[in-house]
């Protein structure tokens, strides 16, 4: 390219190289995601072979039931709704450097409050308002549940991993107590809350069985992503996460921000519980604990706390778990195999990222 080239031309050339670079980057990221997943499937296939199951038949079945059959894909998309809310909550916390490992307790308490309040509200107000109020109450209860760990971390410096873990144990038990003693439906023999009639639940999308909670979940995680990456508030939280001491010295009110982070994170976990109840389950049975929170934590890490990447990983997790549940019923492979599969996928993805990072480093050096 000669020196006399018009600035506009060089700019377009730059744009073109940038576009190529972005495309290569996207290709690279896709390869770095799909490659490890394939490798993980092969490793998990060896385990299946070892216990005498045909891996190809199993994977075929999982794909068919989780992704390609109309009913399966609808179930998969429905399962994504609570997971997206949980992932959104974790993105806020992890970006701000707070290890909120108490998602399951906050989720269950949100679920129980929503399950208890919605059937009462629908009797006195229109259904949409009842759902809205239930969402708000579930969110507030989950926020309150995170207040103690937040205060302890903000003002006493108590490590939030211990406190949130303990609050999650407490929350799980409390949710059971509430279901068994306080909100128990007198009309049933098994302890569970009153069931929200199907017509009062969150509407389903376009004549399918997909809950509209999916849209709420997508909205939540995208909003969280944009707030964390594009706003001053998000920047403040990321500073707190990157270096709390620097945040204090730059004049940020770290205790207040800490409490805000916990409130947002727990509130989203509570909404996850509410969206699962108001959209799908309709009630909470005693001892119900899907433990979504634990599976979502590594997913958020692997997505590097990026909202859009998290959506992709949550989709993968849903396909595997819905497909795995069907395969358990039909092929006699316990659904616990899904846990093994998810675990191998996580480990191989983490390894691949490390190898990629190392490769780039050595190339640059």
């Amino acid at each position, binding site marked *: 390219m000669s020196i006399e080239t018009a600035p506009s031309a060089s700019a377009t050339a730059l744009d073109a190289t940038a576009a190529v670079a972005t495309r290569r980057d996207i290709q690279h990221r896709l390869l770095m995601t799909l490659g490890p997943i394939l490798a993980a499937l092969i490793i998990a296939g060896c385990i299946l072979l070892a216990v005498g199951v045909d891996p190809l038949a199993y994977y075929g079945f999982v794909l068919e039931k989780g992704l390609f059959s109309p009913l399966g894909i609808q179930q998969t998309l429905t399962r994504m709704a609570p997971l997206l809310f949980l992932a959104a909550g974790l993105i806020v916390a992890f970006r701000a450097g707070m290890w909120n490992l108490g998602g399951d307790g906050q989720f269950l308490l949100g679920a129980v409050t929503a399950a208890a309040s919605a059937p009462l509200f629908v009797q006195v107000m229109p259904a949409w308002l009842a759902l809205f109020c239930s969402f708000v109450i579930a969110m507030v209860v989950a926020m309150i549940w995170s207040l103690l760990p937040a205060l302890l971390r903000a003002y006493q410096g108590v490590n939030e991993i211990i406190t949130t873990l303990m609050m999650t*144990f407490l929350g799980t038990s409390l949710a059971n107590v509430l279901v068994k003693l306080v909100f128990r439906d007198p009309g049933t023999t098994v302890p569970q809350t009153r069931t929200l009639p199907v017509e009062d639940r969150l509407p389903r999308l376009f004549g399918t069985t997909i809950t509209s909670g999916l849209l709420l979940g997508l909205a939540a995680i995208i909003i969280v992503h944009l707030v964390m990456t594009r706003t001053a508030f998000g920047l403040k939280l990321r500073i707190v996460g990157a270096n709390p001491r620097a945040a204090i010295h730059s004049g940020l009110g770290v205790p207040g921000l800490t409490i805000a982070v916990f409130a947002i994170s727990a509130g989203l976990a509570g909404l996850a519980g509410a969206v699962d109840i108001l959209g799908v389950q309709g009630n909470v049975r005693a001892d119900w604990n899907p433990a979504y929170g634990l599976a979502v934590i590594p997913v958020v890490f692997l997505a590097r706390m990026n909202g859009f990447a998290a959506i992709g990983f949550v989709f993968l997790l849903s396909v595997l778990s819905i497909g795995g549940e069907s395969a358990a019923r039909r092929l006699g492979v*316990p659904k616990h195999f899904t846990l093994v599969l998810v675990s191998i996928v996580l480990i191989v993805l983490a390894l691949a990222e490390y190898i990629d990072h190392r490769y780039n480093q050595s190339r640059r050096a």
Partner: protein
Amino acid sequence: MTGLFSEVFLSALLFGAVTAAIPLLLAGLGEQMSEKAGVLNIGIEGMMLAGAYLGFVGAFYSGSLWLGFLTGAGGGMAVALVMALLCVRIGLNQIVIGIALTLGLEGLTALLHHFQFSRSYPRLPAVDVTVIPLLSDIPVIGPALFKQHLIVYLAVALVFGMGYIYRRTQLGLNLQAAGDKPAALDVAGIDVLRTRTVAVLTTGALAGLGGAYLANIGAGLFIPFITNGAGFLGIVLAMLARGRPVWVLFGALLFGVCLSLTTAMQVAGINIPTDIIQMLPFLAVMIMLVLFGRRAGLPAALGIPYERGAR
């Protein structure tokens, strides 16, 4: 209500408390060593499950409890080896790998149990206890504390052994340095990664032993997900104990009493949901934290992989 507080009942309650406390104690002691060395070991639940399953299988087929403990500890150590390779040697994120290992072992042990025993849950024969003379004649606490399996005494002895290691030996100092200022340890000519690997493997062995105890002595059988959060309780205990093994013992006993109380209440037919009693130890600890929780005093480099020369 006199029956409730009879000697037999109290003794059984205490016996149950010790039985429930030992796995927590072993897991807590193990986690404590990892954390001292700067590795946050969230995979300990998976290590306990591996220990529980392999420990049970070992004891079931060999007929020897001790062989079961050995295979259990080996199983925990095998999982720990994966953790050490991934998180210590090449420095992957400890929380991701820890949770992945826990999920994977939950699934794997349930899967293996399904294909091996299908839906049957074979039991091990009752364990033989070691009776300590004289002390076991004390009413109430005698039969509860001094008629236990030998491994219980060994576990309690381990508490003091650990205390000795941390306070009086070079290894203890190295572990502490690996967690607080790994670069300084490196400069002193001691391999940080090796120190941390030793800690993680020890954690795995102890957690596996705890799992094996849970399956072989606590329950007498293996069921999927048998640990039910015991590993996470171990993490809580280790963090609360702030590096002191004796505190892990006290904490484990507190949780053990509450766990034992839930079973005892059910046996006595008292109509309180067990969930309420299960909340008690956590409530107690939270209140303690609110009242006395100052800076928790965790190792400075906890959870941060060490890479020589990195800033």
